[in-house]
C-alpha cells in the first residue's frame, strides 16, 4: 500500500482525488450529524453494534459478490430492527449488547472474508476493514450526497420534535408526539450513515466518527442549535485533515481521521468553558 500511495501521488491528477475528498466531507457530515442524536438519545451501544454489523455486511457482500455497500446497509438496518425494540423497552442492558454483538459481528465478518480467498478480494477486504482513499467512487459520492440531503431536510422539518424527544422521551410522548417514529428514524439514518461511510473510514473505526465530533462540540455549547452546526464542522475537518495526512504521509485513512477527531475531543475537554465554569461556582442544587 505504501509504495502505491507514493506512486500515485506523483502521477495521478487531482481530478481522481475528487470523489475521495467529497466522500470524506459527506461522510464527516452525515456521521457527525447523526452523532448528535445518537449521543443524546443514549443510542451509542446500538449504533456501535450497527456499525459492526455494517462491517460484517460489507464482508458478506464481498463473499457473494454483491455491492458491499448494499449489504452493509442491509445488515445495519436489520440490527436496528432487532435491537431497537429490545433496547427501547430496556430489556437489554447496553453492556451485554455490546459485548455480544460486537464480537459476534466481527467474527462473522472474519468468517466471510476468510471464505473468499484471492488477492482482489483481500485488497477490497482490507479496504472495508481499515478504510481506503481510493475505494470511493462516483456512485458512493452520489449516495452519500443523497443521504446528507435527506438528513438536512429531516432535521429541518422535524427539529422541534427531535429536540423534545432528545430532552426526555416520556415528556415528549406526554406532549402528544409519537416518539417511536423518531427513535427508529434516528436508528435507520445512523445505519445508513455508518454503512455508506464504511469504505472511507473502515468498519472497525467508523463509529468514532459518530461519537467524537459530537462529543467535541458538546464541550463548547449549551444551545443544541449550535451543537447541530458545529459537530458536522468538526466531523468534516477531522475527515479532511485525516485525508491530508493519509495522502501526504501515507497514514491509513480511517486511523488518521479517527486520531484527528480524537485529538479535537481531547483539546476540547482541556479548554472546555463548560467544565471550567462548572468547577468554579458549584451549582446550588437543592
Amino acid at each position, binding site marked *: 500500500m505504501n509504495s502505491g500511495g507514493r506512486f500515485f501521488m506523483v502521477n495521478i491528477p487531482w481530478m481522481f482525488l475528487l470523489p475521495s475528498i467529497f466522500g470524506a466531507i459527506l461522510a464527516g457530515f452525515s456521521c457527525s450529524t447523526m452523532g448528535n442524536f445518537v449521543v443524546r438519545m443514549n443510542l451509542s451501544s446500538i449504533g456501535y453494534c450497527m456499525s459492526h454489523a455494517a462491517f460484517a455486511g460489507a464482508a458478506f457482500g464481498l463473499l457473494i459478490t454483491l455491492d458491499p455497500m448494499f449489504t452493509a446497509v442491509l445488515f445495519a438496518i436489520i440490527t436496528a430492527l432487532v435491537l431497537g425494540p429490545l433496547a427501547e423497552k430496556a430489556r437489554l442492558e447496553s453492556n451485554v449488547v455490546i459485548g455480544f454483538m460486537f464480537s459476534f459481528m466481527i467474527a462473522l465478518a472474519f468468517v466471510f472474508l476468510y471464505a473468499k480467498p484471492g488477492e482482489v478480494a483481500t485488497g477490497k477486504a482490507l479496504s472495508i476493514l481499515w478504510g481506503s482513499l481510493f475505494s470511493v467512487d462516483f456512485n458512493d459520492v452520489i449516495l452519500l450526497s443523497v443521504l446528507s440531503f435527506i438528513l438536512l431536510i429531516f432535521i429541518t422539518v422535524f427539529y422541534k420534535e427531535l429536540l423534545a424527544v432528545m430532552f426526555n422521551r416520556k415528556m415528549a*410522548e406526554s406532549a402528544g408526539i409519537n416518539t417511536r417514529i423518531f427513535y427508529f428514524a434516528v436508528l435507520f439514518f445512523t445505519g445508513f450513515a455508518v454503512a455508506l461511510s464504511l469504505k472511507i473510514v473502515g468498519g472497525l473505526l467508523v463509529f468514532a466518527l459518530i461519537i467524537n465530533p459530537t462529543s467535541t462540540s458538546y464541550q463548547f455549547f449549551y444551545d*443544541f442549535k449550535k451543537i447541530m452546526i458545529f459537530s458536522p464542522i468538526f466531523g468534516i475537518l477531522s475527515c479532511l485533515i485525516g485525508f491530508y495526512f493519509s495522502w501526504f504521509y501515507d497514514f491509513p485513512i480511517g486511523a488518521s481521521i479517527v486520531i484527528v477527531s480524537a485529538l479535537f475531543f481531547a483539546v476540547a475537554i482541556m479548554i472546555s468553558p463548560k467544565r471550567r465554569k462548572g468547577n468554579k461556582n458549584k451549582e446550588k442544587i437543592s
Partner: protein
Amino acid sequence: MLEYQNIIDLRGISTIYEGEKIPVINNIDLKVKSGEFISLIGPNGAGKTTLLETINGLLDYQKGTGFVFGKKINKNKTWIRKHVGYVIQNFELDPLAPFLCKDIVMSGRTGKIGLFRFPTKKDWKIVWRSMSMVGMIDFAKRPIGKLSGGEFQKIILARSLAQQPRLLLLDEPLSNLDLSSKKQIETLLNRVHESHGITIVMVSHDLTNVPANCKRVLVLDKGQIIMDDSKDKILRSETIDRIFKNNEFRG
C-alpha cells in the same frame, strides 16, 4: 366545546404492566369535575404514577373504560396528551445538557403545533407568557442543566403550561425541593388553578404540603382508592396513620 360532565371519568379501570399478572391499579372509579384541585397521596408503590399515566394514555388499561374530556382514553391517546399537561417525576438531568430553557418550554407545545409545522410568533408568545407566569422569563436563554432544583421544576411547569392545558397532572412536583422552593411552587400552583381555572391532579408524598387550593384528597393504597374525601377530614383521619405507619411520609 365538548360535552362532558366530568373532566376525568374512570369506570372500573385496571392497568397491568406488560409481562406482569397483578394489576398496579385495580378497579379504579374516579370522577373529577372541571376546575377541581385534587391531591393523590399514598405510600410508595401504591400506583399513583400509574394512575396518572393511565389518565393521559401513556399506559394502556386492560379493564374498564375511561374518559378524559368526554373522550375515550384508549382511542384518543394522542389528542388527550396534547391537551393534558403532564409533569413527570423528578428525573436526573445531565448538567451539561445542551438545551436552553426557552426551547424546553417550547417543546411542551410541540405536539399541539403538529408535524410539518414550525412554531409561529403566537407560539412563542405563549411560551414567553408561561415563562413569566412561573417567574422564569429571565432564564429563557439559560442552559437547563445549570438550574437549581426549584428553578428546574418551574421551567418544567412552564413547559406544561405552554401546552395551554385544561387539565394538569403533576407527579410529585414538590419532592426533592428545599422548603422555600416548595412554598414557591405551591403558591404557583394555587395561582395557576385560580387564574386559569385549570383542573389539577397532583401526586404527593408529603402530607404536610397539600396546597391551600386543594380541597379533595384521594388516598391510594395497593392499587385502589381507599379514601376520597375533603382534605381536612382525610388529614385528620386515623386511616392515614395506619397506612403511613412506619413510613417516612407521615405528616
